[in-house]
């Protein structure tokens, strides 16, 4: 039972991470691989606010999420003002640099990790564990619904248009930079929320849990479940959290299970990209409809002046 509760919490946390990553890379079309560092900032932020500054755990969780969202602006604002392409490179630097700082500061616990984090519930019984499952579950569903609400309706229309053709979008008077920075901040805030929930359950944070490689795991969840679908990333998170655990039950030698998990992750991404790029929940991809026969126009590109107009 305890094992199941822990697994459910792990799934819930990754549902939040995958959904918010889907918002950034899927809906926003913003190529970033810094999602793990915002996961870390939320975790460390919340843990330190509660442990060293004596804040209550619930407000610390909220503030931890806000810390991650605010920190994202420091990355996205300068990068996105130049061009979308810079975000990828800037995000690599941000991810590696900040994690290096966390590993070398005393008050974050350095490379040894941060221990003695205050729990959300004072006692650790099976009841409080189940209560934690409920809290994470509610917040995970709330995240999925918040992302859906954001990308539907008039704001979602703007996000879609921006992704389709940013220059044409700007020429209509729309501030694409503001939309990108906002989307990135909201996505990062949810990653921070996931980090804070992680910290106050496991009560220990190690910098290794936030390495750049985890953005590959999150990307796998989004791709397998379905980019730009509502529940796809959640399904991806569930599958990719549960499958590796199932392998553990096979009682294979540990020398095998480690590499096997990596192979399965990579294999899944390749399998899906080749056979089902829309993911499990995506609607079937079809090539754009052929334009109807031009009844009112000569072939595109025929821009010679008509006979009568030539001097």
């Amino acid at each position: 039972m305890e094992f199941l509760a822990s697994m459910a919490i792990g799934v819930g946390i990754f549902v939040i991470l995958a959904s918010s990553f889907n918002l950034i890379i899927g809906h926003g079309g913003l190529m970033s691989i810094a999602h793990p560092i915002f996961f870390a900032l939320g975790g460390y932020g919340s843990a330190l606010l509660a442990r060293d500054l004596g804040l209550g755990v619930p407000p610390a969780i909220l503030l931890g999420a806000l810390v991650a969202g605010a920190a994202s602006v420091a990355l996205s604002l300068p990068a996105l003002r130049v061009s979308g392409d810079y975000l990828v490179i800037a995000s690599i630097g941000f991810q590696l640099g900040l994690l290096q700082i966390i590993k070398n500061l005393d008050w974050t616990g350095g490379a040894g990790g941060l221990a003695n984090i205050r729990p959300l519930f004072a006692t650790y019984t099976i009841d409080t564990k189940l209560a934690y499952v409920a809290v994470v579950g509610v917040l995970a569903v709330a995240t999925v619904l918040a992302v859906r609400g954001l990308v539907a309706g008039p704001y979602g229309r703007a996000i879609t248009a921006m992704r389709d053709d940013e220059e044409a979008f700007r020429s209509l008077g729309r501030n694409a930079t503001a939309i990108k920075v906002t989307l990135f901040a909201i996505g990062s805030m949810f990653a921070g929320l996931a980090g804070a929930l992680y910290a106050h359950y496991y009560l220990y944070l190690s910098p290794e849990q936030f390495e750049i490689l985890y953005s590959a795991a999150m990307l796998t969840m989004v791709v397998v479940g379905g980019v730009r679908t509502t529940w796809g990333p959640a399904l991806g998170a569930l599958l990719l959290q549960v499958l590796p655990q199932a392998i553990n039950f096979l009682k294979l030698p540990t020398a095998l299970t480690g590499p096997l998990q990596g192979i399965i992750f990579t294999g899944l991404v390749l399998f899906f990209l080749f056979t089902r790029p829309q993911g499990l929940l995506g609607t079937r991809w079809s090539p754009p409809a052929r334009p109807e026969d031009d009844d009112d126009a000569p072939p595109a590109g025929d821009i010679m002046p008509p006979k009568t107009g030539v001097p």
Partner: protein
Amino acid sequence: MTTALEVRGLTKRFGGIVVAESIAARFEAGRIVGLIGPNGAGKSSFFNLVTGVVPADAGAVLINGTDATRLPMHARARLGVARTWQHVRLFASLTVLENLMIAPRRYHAETPLALVAPGRHETERRLRERAMAQLEKVRMVDFAQRRPGELSFGKQRLISLARALMNDGNVLLLDEPMAGVEGPAYEAIKALVRAEAAGGRAVCIVEHNISFVRDLCDSALFMFQGRILRAGTVSELIASPELTELYFGT
């Protein structure tokens, strides 16, 4: 007459290629000006400099008297500059109606706060009505729920014109509005552009279809190698053997 758009000494070079060399021009509200010249003369680049797609090396852009030279693209659009593109550039994932609904000068959902703003449903309804009215003008109402990719190039042109007209500002830049358009749509566009000018917009048209330019434009500018070589009526310009030679490269 009020000057809606003015450029002074507008200059732009890409390496050794001069796309604009000290261009100075005024565009008055209510007047239609043709911008003609051979391919590569810098006509589309002129639109890109005015709208802020590319920053100018030197010179100034004034939109309704406001210096917009240092302003980003979206701010210039909000000052009242609407444009179409040579390659149409509709949003492929949106319906035709949504393509128009995203295009007013002031959009109510620039931030997620709009999702909880009071009166948002009413705002959406009014916006939809405005977009449908614009589609009505180009007779594209029947295609409101279709995706642009399903429609003919000529229809996409008409829709892109309607999208530009969602900006109620007084500067309208049309980049080859007639390319790919013939038949009844041809006359419809002509009438529409005339009506927009009569409504107080300064219109500037880049167009290779000389008869269209002659029918519609009050005056024209002849561009060559990033310069405005001559200004005058369309008939004057096309009567000049020298310009005709430059145009056709004979």
